């Protein structure tokens, strides 16, 4: 019997289709990728990107020249532009405003390495330090409400033809809908229970164990109860914290180790699949920004990793209704057993 499961935070139902369940090794159909072009993100190709915003580089090396470890540049084809005013306005029944925002590319390594799982733990930890610096910097711009950090790995996940490990950061002038839903869901749970929904979720998962992939060093990686996609994995800190930017250097290194392990398990177990991951963290909390007081207690930052093994049909987009062809318990068992 298939099961309908409800996400406890945002209330989204998914169908866990046990009857049409596939074995883990039946996934992994990848479409034909276009051929690769010259990589603008490699060391020595600095002039092929817009001027850098931020970098971690050797002493006495000039900006936009070799000698860096990690580099942040504006997107060549930005979704949003940094200059200008919002100018909110109406047009008949419709509302619109100017596309003001920031769109940055975080180049995670000077080497031409595609998958983050192949970077060292120290390097991944530097990437996370850079996330924190960039989010904190963008918070100073009062026009922005949220900075969304995400990664598209491989063509099928929207990464284009260039195979160089990178993340993207987009600061938006409105709190994105999906983020708001999660914040509201977490607050409602907190209002009723006076506990953090994610802390409760971690507690139950650790007792139950069937959906736990990893439990090391203050972090837990689980396949969520209401997974939307086969092998969806969430990485959560066991210690409650709403804001990713408060992470100290030691826990940054632990997180790097956990992320490297999870991504390596996906790579090895599922034949290097395309994936997206998204950092879910608290929005900018300026005074009088209209956010509630309990956000420090009710929200819990985490990373959601979504391998792109099935083709998401417009159906899922249109309805918000997901059919997951692999129970998360099976996915977790499979990933636990992958040596990586």
């Amino acid at each position: 019997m298939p099961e309908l499961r409800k996400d406890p935070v945002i209330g989204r139902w998914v169908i866990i289709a046990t009857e049409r369940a596939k074995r883990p090794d039946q996934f992994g159909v990848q479409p034909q990728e276009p051929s690769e072009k010259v990589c603008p993100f490699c060391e020595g190709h600095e002039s092929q990107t817009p001027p850098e915003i931020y970098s971690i580089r050797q002493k006495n090396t000039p900006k936009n020249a070799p000698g860096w470890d990690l580099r942040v540049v504006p997107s060549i084809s930005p979704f949003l532009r940094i200059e200008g005013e919002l100018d909110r306005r109406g047009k008949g029944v419709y509302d619109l405003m100017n596309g003001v925002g920031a769109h940055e590319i975080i180049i995670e390594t000077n080497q031409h390495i595609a998958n983050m799982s192949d970077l060292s733990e120290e390097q991944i930890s530097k990437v996370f330090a850079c996330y924190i610096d960039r989010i904190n910097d963008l918070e100073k711009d009062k026009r922005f409400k949220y900075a969304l950090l995400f990664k598209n790995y491989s063509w099928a996940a929207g990464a284009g033809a260039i195979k160089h490990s990178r993340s993207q950061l987009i600061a938006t002038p409105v709190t994105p809908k999906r983020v708001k839903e999660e914040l509201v869901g977490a607050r409602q749970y907190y209002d009723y229970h006076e506990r953090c929904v994610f802390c409760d979720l971690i507690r139950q998962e650790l007792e139950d164990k069937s959906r736990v992939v990893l439990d090391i060093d203050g972090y837990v990686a689980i396949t969520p109860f209401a997974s939307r996609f086969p092998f969806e994995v969430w990485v959560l800190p066991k210690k409650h914290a709403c804001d990713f930017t408060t992470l100290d250097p030691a826990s940054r290194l632990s997180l790097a180790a956990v992320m490297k392990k999870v991504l390596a398990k996906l790579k090895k177990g599922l034949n290097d699949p395309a994936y997206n991951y998204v950092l879910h963290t608290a929005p900018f909390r300026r005074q009088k920004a209209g956010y509630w007081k309990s956000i420090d207690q009710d929200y819990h930052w985490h990373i959601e990793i979504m391998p792109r093994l099935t083709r998401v049909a417009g159906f899922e987009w249109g309805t918000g209704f997901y059919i997951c062809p692999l129970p998360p318990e099976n996915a977790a068992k499979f990933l636990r057993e992958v040596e990586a």
Partner: protein
Amino acid sequence: MSELRRDPIGGRWVIVDTDKPSTPKDYDFEPQIYRNEVCPFCYGNEAMTPPEIDAVRETPTYPNTPGWQVRVVANKFPALQIEGDLDRRGTGMYDMSNGVGAHEVIVETPYHNKDIHELTNQEIENFLSVYCRRSLDLAKDKRFKYIMIFKNFGAPAGASLEHPHTQLIALPMIPKNVAEEIKGAHSYFEYRERCLFCDIIRQESQEKERVVLENRHFISFCPFVSRFPFEIWIMPKNHSAHFCAISAEEIKSLASILKETITKLKNIFPNLSYNYIIHTSPINGDGGSEGYHWHIEFMPKLTRVAGFEWGSGFYVVATPPELAADYLKKA
């Protein structure tokens, strides 16, 4: 400067690239390519599917034999099962329920290689009438709250079989996006005592710049807040909450606008894959359908959705709908 546009129905924002808009040839989409394989939906292979639930047979022939024009069967790998009671329960902090529901496949035509625009109007009317008939039949089952009719055409759009078919899923609850859409339409109705969709139709037919086609009963247009490039909505001009209340005359109009719209799209993008979904009111309960207006949302599969869309619920559209409509009008 690109524009941020807000959908008046669900409150979703999209980013529309009005600066350097993409033209049709900028889309590097995965084409739909037919493979040669044994097809369970072709004449003579009726035994490969579960027994038929419904069929259109112009000259009487036996069920589960060739001679049909449209055929409805249960999905061989159903996402939901028809038997059993809804058993909502908790497991710790989580909520769940049995996967009770119906999952049917409507084989639109005996032709393996014909997309909708290659069928005659009569053939399209046939399967549209079957959509309606199946909806009415399943609505009798009080366990179901929503009937979703959708089509995935082409492997890139998620179709696992290439023979043209539509799926129908009857659900024991209202899907989240549908609930949001209905809530949005309802609060607009409460405030203005007018249907939001009727207002949209009025504005679109006045402004004309996003309209693709219009006939007596329907209008097809690229929505102001498109989520996908070349997204098209087809809407009945007469206010109606339920798709299955459609009249025979309206079915004729719908068949014709559907055929012409897809013809235009395929003129621009041969071998295009796509999805469409019929958005309609819930059944068997308080649907709050007064301010709702059924319609079809048509989504060409031209781009790949990435992390930003997943994380934010924001969509980025590289071809403004005004420009897309212009290409379509000329196609």
